[in-house]
């Protein structure tokens, strides 16, 4: 690439920016949403209420928000990165304190008209903060260990707070997403190798701190027969549903496992199972293909972005999105223990949908502003 010949793009009008949105990505997202709405319609036994209709409305609202986010000047987001992180951090602490007072797990802040999940904001805030932190750094800096202290704090502080809630799944997502960003920013490989080694070594210690229900999930995951009617039941029934779908599926609205309620949480965590039961291997592969195209489109946006902030932001958000997909589907297939991670755009749920679309908005913003210069 001959970078010398490139010029910085002059300021774009709103209309230009709008035309610059990545419409291919919007189309792919609409396709995934179509799968979600279809599944939710079927999950409700052939009815738009109570899930499919709300999901579609949220998606439409989310699309507007996504475009708005994408059209905001990239530099605004750059400047907002730290404050946003700060707000999310304060909210997390608040939630933890309220949780303590309420003597139980607390993940939500009720603002009266809306409930916000600070950990959900934090997922994006961490990525933005890291993108900003790495934006001005050259490769030599990134390779210096001292430079990585700030990212480490940026990642581990919220991870700790989320684990206190306790929400192990989200904490792992933040940790893994953050680590991915440190990785693409060019941190030395030995850090990751030793971190993984340390992590493996820490498993026995971490085990001590795990909640009983979490340990139970692991036990049962390793041996579902331990509790065929309890936690193992979810895994077993989900595998039965997937497997019985076969190559061609049982047909739209014909999924017996989900129709007859053998499949728990069919509209949220196990929505992929319902889809693959009714549409078979073809349907399942179709959805996986859609996700693959989305990942690739996003990474392509990152690669074509001229400034580090946009690159890191786009990759970080893509990794975060793909982790959701992997964890949710692996869980439905019985590859990992059951954790409450929704399948983005498909699972029924408001906050997840909006935050996912905000994430895509940011990625598209990187696309719209791919030629812009982002100064420190």
């Amino acid at each position, binding site marked *: 690439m001959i970078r010398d010949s490139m010029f910085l793009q002059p300021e774009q009008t709103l209309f230009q920016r709008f035309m610059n949105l990545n419409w291919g990505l919007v189309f792919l997202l609409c396709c995934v949403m179509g799968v979600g709405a279809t599944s939710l319609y079927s999950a409700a036994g052939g009815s738009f209420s109570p899930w499919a209709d709300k999901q579609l409305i949220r998606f439409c609202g989310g699309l507007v928000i996504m475009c708005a986010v994408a059209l905001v000047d990239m530099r605004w987001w750059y400047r907002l990165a730290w404050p946003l992180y700060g707000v999310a951090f304060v909210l997390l602490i608040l939630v933890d304190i309220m949780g303590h007072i309420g003597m139980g797990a607390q993940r939500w802040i009720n603002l009266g008209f809306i409930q916000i999940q600070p950990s959900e904001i934090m997922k994006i805030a961490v990525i933005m903060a890291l993108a900003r932190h790495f934006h001005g750094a050259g490769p030599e800096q990134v390779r210096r260990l001292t430079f990585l202290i700030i990212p480490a704090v940026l990642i581990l502080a919220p991870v700790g707070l989320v684990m206190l809630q306790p929400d192990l799944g989200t904490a792992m997502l933040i940790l893994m997403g953050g680590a991915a960003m440190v990785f693409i920013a060019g941190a030395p490989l030995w850090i990751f190798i030793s971190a993984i080694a340390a992590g493996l070594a820490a498993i026995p210690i971490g085990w001590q701190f795990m909640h009983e229900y979490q340990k139970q999930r692991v036990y049962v995951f390793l041996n579902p027969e331990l509790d065929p009617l309890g936690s193992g039941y979810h895994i077993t029934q989900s595998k039965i549903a997937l497997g019985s779908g076969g190559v061609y599926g049982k047909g739209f609205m014909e999924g017996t496992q989900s129709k007859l309620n053998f499949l728990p949480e069919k509209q949220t965590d196990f929505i992929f199972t319902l889809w693959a039961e009714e549409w078979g291997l073809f349907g399942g592969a179709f959805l996986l293909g859609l996700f693959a195209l989305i990942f690739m489109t996003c990474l392509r946006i990152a690669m074509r972005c001229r400034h580090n902030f946009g690159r890191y932001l786009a990759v970080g958000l*893509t990794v975060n999105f793909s982790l959701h997909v992997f964890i949710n589907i692996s869980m439905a297939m019985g590859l990992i223990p059951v954790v409450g991670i929704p399948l983005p755009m498909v699972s029924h749920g408001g906050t997840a949908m909006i935050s996912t679309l905000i994430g895509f908005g940011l990625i598209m913003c990187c696309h719209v502003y791919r030629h812009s210069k982002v100064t420190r």
Partner: protein
Amino acid sequence: MARRSDDEGFKTFSRRTLLVGGLQIVGLGVLGGRLAYLQIVEGNRYKVLADKNRINLRLISPPRGLIVDRFGVPLAVNVENFQVHMIREQTEDMRTSLQALQKLIPLENQVIDSVIEQAKKIPKFLPVKVKEDLTWEEVARIQVNLPDLPGIFVERGETRNYPYGLETSHLTGYVGAVSEDILKAEGEKEPVLSLPGFKIGKIGIEKQYDGEMRGKAGASEIEVNVVGREVRELKRLEATPGDRITLTIDAELQRYAHELLSKERSASAVVMDAQTGAVYVMASHPGYDPNLFSRGIPSSIWKSLLDDTSLPLSHKALVGQYPPGSTFKMITALAGLESGVTNGHRTVYCPGFYMMGKQRFHCWRPQGHGRVDIIGALQKSCDTYFYTIAAEMGIDRIAEVGRRFGLGSKLGFDLEDERPGIMPDKNWKYGRYSERWHNGETVVNAIGQGYVLTTPLQLAVMTARLVNGGYAVKPWITAKIGEQDKTPAPAEKMNEVREDFLAYILKGMESVVNTAGGTAYGSRIVEAGMEMGGKTGTAQVQRITKEQRAKGVKNEDLPWEQRHHALFVGYAPIHAPRYVCSVVVEHGVGGSRAAAPIAKELLLRAQTRDPSAMAMQTSPVEELKPSPETITPGKKPGREGPA
């Protein structure tokens, strides 16, 4: 910013981003592979598991086969009844609902408790039976008040009903709940047995042909959701109804026999076809109401049935073993003729007793019969004559003839409960008591006392073989199982029998009834062409003591349990005999007095109806439809003989 380092940073970024992208593709590939593995390789296994999840196989109880008489008159049917059920989830408070129900129909508090108890053990959307056999009025009362009875509803069920009730009780038997042992032994093969409320035959025909009448359970594949609630029916395989059992019985004749017997305290009668062995009547009195059993008999009634000294639960015509008394004399006579110790001309003088050595054997008539030949001896039932010939030929000759005529062993009757009776001889006594036979015992047994025991059915068979010219007929009662004809092959002629000897016996039996001085002359049939022949019998229950004889105590003055049994065997018409009949009146004092009149009426009615002359009918005369009337027990289908 140094462009070189920027460049280098971009390279690192690109490399590592491509690696991330590669990992993502690999990740999706793994998921796709896993999906393909689950859906292709393990697909069929999981399909089975999914079906197991969702499909409940529910058995459909087959309707039990009917029992009908030879003309299709139903003796055992299935009557739809009305039952009241309750579903827990449809009421907020079960007790309130049940108490509201209690105001409408009789319902014990203890039933309410047990219903609540039961309902708590099963899923709350499944019904529990509260009460069955509701009357029409009760159903109406409940239906009108349904809004005040949350969770309660009325449903149709089926119970076994016996239109003739106690009159055919011993034949049909009854049905009852499946016992634990049977369930354990057969439950695997016949899952229908484990259906709640399923009834099986406990005794009589119901038990004998339980397998045939039970039918085959149908099945309904019901899709259920995760808590077992029914969603829809997927497939239905209708139950195969059990076979109908057609009996040779003539229900109306049976009813009439019962009416005649019921004048006595305990009695039984058999009417049989002398030519074919088909049983037309097999009646025992007293009977019981089998309808009580199919609904669960109250223990008080059960206890009173068990305690009754007249044994209402016992099928006396089949299992009652009585000394035949003088009805046995035909056998002794025939044995005498066959062994040559007597013939048509030999006479014996009866002074009222017979002396064997120093031992005196009394004739029933103290003043004696004077000189009698074989026919006169039968007519007047002279004991002395038979003492004499029996002493001359010995017990073994008599026993041999008795066995040939169906005494002393089971006849292979359709009902298993059949008893063998006893036809003693020297070997039998040695086997039983390890003692030698005394000659004195020969004379006692020759007049049907002593060890000899016979059932009313055996007496009828004996009579049939005597009057049909010596054909070894066997009794049978099952005419058809379903459409399968069970009529046995015609009986074979017994080759030892000489018809000229039988003629003497028949002549004697004819004069018992039709010649003045015969012991049953008072019971003769006067209708021309319908006259009967027969033989009375009076069997001692207790030895008559010397004191009683000296005092001239009359048997009828003794307590009921000590009185003689009254017996009669008969046949009609005299020429070409068709119907044979045996009657035993327990403690009826004398055969001529108690048994012969019953036999006369039965044989007269049998000839009037003449069931043997009419073809059997295969289908029931009327199928009982559910109606308030049929629910009320004791109602009989009106029928006045096959027109």
